[in-house]
C-alpha cells in the first residue's frame, strides 16, 4: 500500500472532541479506526500470524489421519486445541473474524477513495498559486513577445503534452498523471477482489481426493470420495454429477543410466460423463494436464499398485476377491505397504499386513526389497492374523491400518509370493491367493469458482502497482506578467507522488522547451532548480537574466 491511502485514512484518525463523544461519535471513531491504514496493516499481519497454527498443527481438511494421530499422541491437549479450532484453522470463527475485519477495513478505505478519485478526476486542476517561487520546482525567465501571446503559447505546449488544463487571468494550471491514482486504486480494488475471490472459493468450492484402481469407476458424490472438503455453503447436491472410469493406467520409467527408475510418463485413460446418461468422453489424464469437467478440475497426483487377492475362508467360500490398494513407502522401487481385512471370514476374521514389491529382490541375509518401480518381478510378503478386527463396534478405522490388539498371529512360514501362489492357513482358517496386481491413480478433484477471479485480481493488483510506481501525478503552473523590462514567464512544478523519481528532470526539460519557444533568448537553456531556498532562487534568476542579457 502506498502513502496516499495512509493520508486519506489518516484524516479520520483524530479522536472526536471529548465534549461531544456520543454514540454516533463513537461509531464514527470506530469506523475510522477500522478503515485506517494502520488497522489494515495490523489485520494483515494478524492474518499471517493466525495462519501459523494451520501449518504447524495437522489440519482436518488436509490430513485427517494426522489429526487422529495427534489425538493419540496428545490426549490431553488435542481436545483443547479442537475446541479452539486448532485442527481447522482456516475454518475457525476467529480466523473468519480477522478475515472479515480485514475485508471491511479495506472496503471501507478503498471504496470511498474510489468515489473521491472518480469525483476529482472530473475536476479541473486547481488555480495557479500566486507565488510560484515557493513550489518545490520553479523558475522564471523573460519572454520575447507580449504576455498574452506567451501564455497562449505555453497553453498550446502543455496541451500538446496532454496535460489537463485550467486557464485564468495571466495563468494556466496543468495537471497530468491521473493514471498514478488509477493504478493505486486498481491495486487496492484488486486486493479486495482477491479477498472476495478467496472467499468465493471457500464458500462455494470444494476439494476431494479419490484413489481409483484401473478398471474401476466412481461418481462425484460424497459417498464415493475418499477425502471430501466442501466449502461452507456446499451441499452434496452442489457437486457436479460427473462419473469417471479409469480404463487403463500406464507408467513408464527410465530403464538405464543415472536416471534409472525415474518416472518417464504417467497416463491414466479415463472415460467420463458430465452427468448421468450424458455422452461419454475420453481423456488421457497426465500429470499437470487436468481433466476439466463442468468447471471441475481433476488432477492426477499419485499412483501405486493394488495387488489382487482371493481369500477362501474355513468354510470353503470366497470371502474376498478384489484389488487392495497398497501405499508406496519409497520412491526408488515403489515398495508399498498395505493391509487386507477379511472381517467376514469363518470361523475367524482374518487380517494381513504386508508389502508389495514391484521388482522384488532378496538378499542372502533374507531381507527383501524392490529395486525398480515397474512391476517386472511382482511379489508380496504377508503376515497373517486371526481374531477380532474391531470393525463391528462402529468405530471408523482406516482401511490402510490393521489393529491387531485383539488378534493372534497366524503361524505360517513368511515368504515372498509370486502371482498365482497361495498361503494355506493352518487350523482350517482358509487360504489366501495372490492373484496379480493392478495399478491405481490418485485423483485430486478441485472446484474453485474463485480461481479465475483470483488470477485476474492478482494480475490487476500487479498492473496497478506498476502503474502507480511508474506514473507520477504532477502539476505545472505558468504565470505570465509584464513588468518594466518586458514579459516574465514564471514556471512552477509540483509532484504529489514521485516514487520512481525523475520529476526534476522532467521539469528541467519542460523549462528548457519553454525557454526555447517563448524565451527572449531562444536557444539558451538555463538549468532548472529544485531549491525552495529563496537566496539560491534569486541567484539563479540572476544567472538566467545575465545569460539573456549576454545574448
Amino acid at each position: 500500500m502506498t502513502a496516499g491511502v495512509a493520508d486519506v485514512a489518516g484524516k479520520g484518525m483524530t479522536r472526536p472532541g471529548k465534549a461531544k463523544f456520543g454514540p454516533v461519535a463513537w461509531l464514527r471513531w470506530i469506523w475510522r479506526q477500522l478503515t485506517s491504514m494502520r488497522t489494515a496493516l495490523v489485520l494483515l499481519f494478524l492474518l499471517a500470524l493466525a495462519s501459523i497454527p494451520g501449518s504447524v498443527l495437522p489440519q482436518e481438511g488436509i490430513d485427517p489421519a494426522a489429526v487422529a494421530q495427534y489425538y493419540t499422541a496428545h490426549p490431553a491437549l488435542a481436545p483443547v486445541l479442537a475446541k479452539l479450532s486448532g485442527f481447522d484453522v482456516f475454518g475457525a470463527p476467529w480466523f473468519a473474524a480477522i478475515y472479515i475485519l480485514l475485508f471491511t477495513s479495506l472496503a471501507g478505505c478503498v471504496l470511498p477513495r474510489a468515489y473521491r478519485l472518480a469525483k476529482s478526476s472530473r475536476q479541473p486542476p486547481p488555480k495557479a498559486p500566486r507565488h510560484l517561487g515557493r513550489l518545490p520546482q520553479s523558475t522564471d525567465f523573460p519572454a520575447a513577445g507580449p504576455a498574452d501571446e506567451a501564455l497562449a503559447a505555453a497553453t498550446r505546449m502543455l496541451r500538446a503534452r496532454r496535460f489537463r488544463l485550467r486557464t485564468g487571468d495571466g495563468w494556466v494550471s496543468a495537471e497530468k498523471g491521473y493514471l498514478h491514482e488509477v493504478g493505486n486504486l486498481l491495486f487496492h480494488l484488486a486486493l479486495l477482489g482477491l479477498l472476495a475471490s478467496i472467499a468465493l472459493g471457500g464458500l462455494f468450492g470444494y476439494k476431494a481426493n479419490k484413489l481409483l484402481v484401473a478398471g474401476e469407476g466412481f461418481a462425484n458424490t460424497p459417498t464415493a470420495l475418499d477425502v471430501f472438503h466442501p466449502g461452507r455453503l456446499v451441499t452434496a447436491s452442489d457437486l457436479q454429477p460427473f462419473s469417471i472410469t479409469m480404463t487403463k493406467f500406464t507408467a513408464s520409467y527410465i530403464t538405464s543410466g543415472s536416471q534409472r527408475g525415474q518416472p518417464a510418463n504417467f497416463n491414466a485413460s479415463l472415460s467420463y460423463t458430465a452427468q448421468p446418461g450424458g455422452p461419454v468422453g475420453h481423456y488421457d489424464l497426465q500429470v499437470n494436464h487436468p481433466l476439466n469437467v463442468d468447471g471441475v478440475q481433476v488432477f492426477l497426483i499419485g499412483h501405486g499398485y493394488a495387488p489382487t487377492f482371493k481369500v477362501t475362508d474355513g468354510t470353503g467360500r470366497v470371502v474376498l476377491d478384489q484389488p487392495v490398494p497398497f501405499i508406496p513407502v519409497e520412491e526408488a522401487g515403489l515398495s508399498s505397504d498395505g493391509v487386507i481385512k477379511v472381517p467376514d471370514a469363518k470361523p475367524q476374521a482374518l487380517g494381513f499386513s504386508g508389502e508389495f514389491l514391484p521388482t522384488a529382490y532378496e538378499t542372502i541375509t533374507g531381507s527383501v526389497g524392490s529395486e525398480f518401480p515397474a512391476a517386472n518381478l511382482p511379489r508380496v510378503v504377508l503376515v497373517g492374523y486371526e481374531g477380532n478386527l474391531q470393525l463391528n463396534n462402529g468405530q471408523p478405522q482406516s482401511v490402510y491400518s490393521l489393529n491387531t490388539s485383539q488378534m493372534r498371529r497366524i503361524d505360517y512360514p513368511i515368504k515372498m509370493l509370486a502371482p498365482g501362489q497361495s498361503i494355506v492357513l493352518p487350523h482350517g482358517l482358509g487360504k489366501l491367493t495372490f492373484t496379480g496386481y493392478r495399478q491405481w491413480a490418485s485423483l485430486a478433484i478441485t472446484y474453485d469458482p474463485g480461481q479465475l477471479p483470483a488470477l485476474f485480481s492478482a494480475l490487476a493488483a500487479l498492473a496497478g502497482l506498476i502503474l502507480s510506481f511508474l506514473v507520477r501525478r504532477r502539476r505545472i503552473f505558468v504565470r505570465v506578467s509584464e513588468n518594466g523590462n518586458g514579459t516574465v514567464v514564471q514556471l512552477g512544478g509540483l509532484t504529489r507522488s514521485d516514487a520512481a523519481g525523475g520529476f526534476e528532470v522532467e521539469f528541467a526539460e519542460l523549462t528548457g522547451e519553454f525557454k526555447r519557444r517563448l524565451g527572449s533568448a531562444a536557444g539558451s537553456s538555463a538549468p532548472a532548480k529544485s531549491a525552495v531556498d529563496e537566496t539560491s532562487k534569486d541567484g539563479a534568476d540572476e544567472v538566467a537574466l545575465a545569460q539573456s542579457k549576454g545574448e
Partner: protein
Amino acid sequence: MIRLPRFVRPGRVAAVAMAAAAGVVTLTLAGCDGGSIANSSDPGNSGNSFVGASYSSKFFQVGSRPLAPAVTGTLLTGQSFSLRAQRGHVVVLNFWGSWCAPCRQEAPILGTLATDLRGKGVRFFGDNVLDSPDSAEAFERTFNIGYPSINDQGEQVALAFHDTVPPSAIPSTLVIDRAGRIAALVVGAVSFNGLKALIDSVLTGKS
C-alpha cells in the same frame, strides 16, 4: 490419498442443517460432532434419541417430500432392480460397504427391522458401494441379511439422488414412502428405535 472412512465433518452437518428449507424438520443431534475422525471416539448420544449414533437426519413432512429419482440397477444376486416397481411399499434404502465399521454396527438392526416390518409393507434394499461382491455377500451371511442389495460399484445410485436428497456419507439410509417420495434421510448408523419410529411415522402418514 489415504482412503479413510467417509463421514460428514461437523461443518457439513451444519451446512446440511442450513439447507433444510421450510417444511423440513431437521433433527441435528447433539452427538453430531462425532462425525470427524478425530472425535469419533465419542459414542454419540446412545440414550433415547430419535436416531442413534448417526450424524444427522432429516424428515420431510407429507407435502414437502421430494420425488425419488428413477433408480435402476443390478442386485448382487444378478437380478435387476427398479425403485419405481416398489411403489405401494415403504422402501428403506441403505448405502453400505462391508469395510465400513458403522455399517457393520447397524447391520443387525437393519436385518431385524427388515424382517419385522415386512408384513407391514416395508421393503429394505441395500446399495453396496466401494466393495466387491464376494465381500458384500460374506457380510450378508455374517449378519444374516435377508434383503437384497444393489451392486453399485460406480456409485450411480447415490448419484441418482443428486438433485433430491443425496446421501452424504456411508452409511446413509433413505426412507421412501408408498408414493415414491423421499420421507427421510439418516446419515450415519441408525438405531433400532430411531429407525423404527421413522418408518412408523411414514407408515401412519397419509401417503
